[in-house]
């Protein structure tokens, strides 16, 4: 092996390693976020995650326009569910029942905090299924909206823009994100919490609502 060839090779190897280190650094945001969910949480922290204006149909059959220009004052605690889900959605429902009880005792600007459970199962979740889910978890329509996007396209756009992935589990259900999203009236996701951290999510939503007053 001649010295010039070895020197050139070592430089080339160093460049290759540097290129891939840079790619890994970029992909993991400085080796801080190794998974997609961690990247999504980081996006939310930086205010880069925003829900598009979305039309939904609620459990009571009402048509609502979310995250439009008229929706500026609201703060949402948002989760994604499908009503036939036997596991994570029921746990989320239980946590939202607790959140609802906490919100009932809230005074001042924090009363602007609302609960929003959106189904991504547009084909199977109609008003009747949503109403059954709402009843099961004692949802009070004045504080907690259970709804589904009006069209598949709207649901797909919402999930894509928020980076929520619902994966068919092969048994007729879905494996999906079980987080609570703190979303402002313009649709910007301000924070994401795993559902056992519902108290922290509520605290963040209250601070956000308080800061808006």
């Amino acid at each position, binding site marked *: 092996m001649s010295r010039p060839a070895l020197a*050139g090779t070592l430089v080339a*190897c160093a460049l290759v390693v540097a*290129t891939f280190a840079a790619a*890994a650094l970029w992909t*993991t945001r400085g080796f801080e*976020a190794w*998974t*997609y*969910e961690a*990247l999504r949480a980081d996006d939310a922290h930086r205010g880069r995650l925003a829900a598009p204006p979305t039309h939904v149909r609620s459990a009571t059959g009402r048509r609502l326009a979310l995250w439009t220009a008229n929706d500026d004052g609201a703060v949402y605690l948002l989760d994604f569910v499908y009503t036939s889900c036997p596991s994570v959605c029921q746990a989320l429902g239980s946590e939202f029942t607790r959140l609802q009880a906490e919100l009932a005792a809230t005074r001042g600007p924090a009363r602007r905090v609302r609960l929003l459970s959106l189904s991504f199962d547009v084909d199977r979740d109609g008003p009747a299924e949503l109403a059954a889910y709402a009843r099961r978890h004692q949802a009070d329509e004045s504080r907690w909206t259970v709804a589904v996007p009006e069209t598949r396209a709207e649901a797909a756009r919402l999930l894509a823009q928020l980076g929520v992935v619902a994966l068919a589990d092969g048994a007729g259900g879905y494996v999906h994100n079980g987080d609570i999203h703190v979303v402002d009236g313009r649709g910007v996701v301000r924070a994401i919490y795993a559902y056992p951290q519902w108290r922290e999510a509520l605290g963040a939503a209250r601070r956000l609502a308080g800061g808006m007053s």
Partner: protein
Amino acid sequence: MKGAGPGRGVFRVLVALAPTIFAWPALRQAVESRMALQMLLQFPLLLASGWAVSMMLGDRLPSPLLARWFDRIDAGGLLGATVVSCVSAFWMLPAALDASLLSEPMRMAKFASWWLAGAAWGRSAPRLADEAAAFFGGNLAWMLATAGLLYQAGESRLCVGYLLNDQVAAGQGLIVAALIVGAATVHRLLRGAATEPARAAAGPREAVPP
């Protein structure tokens, strides 16, 4: 490089063309929808395709300018081995795997990087010394085993694009891949050690009388 027999030539053409199956969206989606299939079938197939094209260029066609330039900075096969190591390490990252499913540029980057790694490997492998092969092969086996254990140990999904049982299956497959790479590395070392005395006895090529 030695000339290839007709059987070997057909094999290389088939391997080189194998990734064209991913041009069929339904099949590509089916493979990429399973973590184990993506990591243990698609990645190796892309690598093998690049390798086969590289071998065919070396055997049958005049080396293109790029290949000759590559040869000048690939002393001892180190550059090709480094490229394969880096590409393998990058595509073990859960965030990279998800990105390749959700972003078209990342999917293209995946195809290109694995194929180019294979092409580089095809030119580098014959130059790689046993000691260097042991270093890179050992590192690769260790990395595959570590990723395999992590994928199996995770209680939650590391990738949003894959189910937990699929992640565990991919982890098990990576352990098998690590064992294969490790065994191949040891085999090469042992074979090198066995032929070393004969080479030493023959002495340096320059010392052999004409």
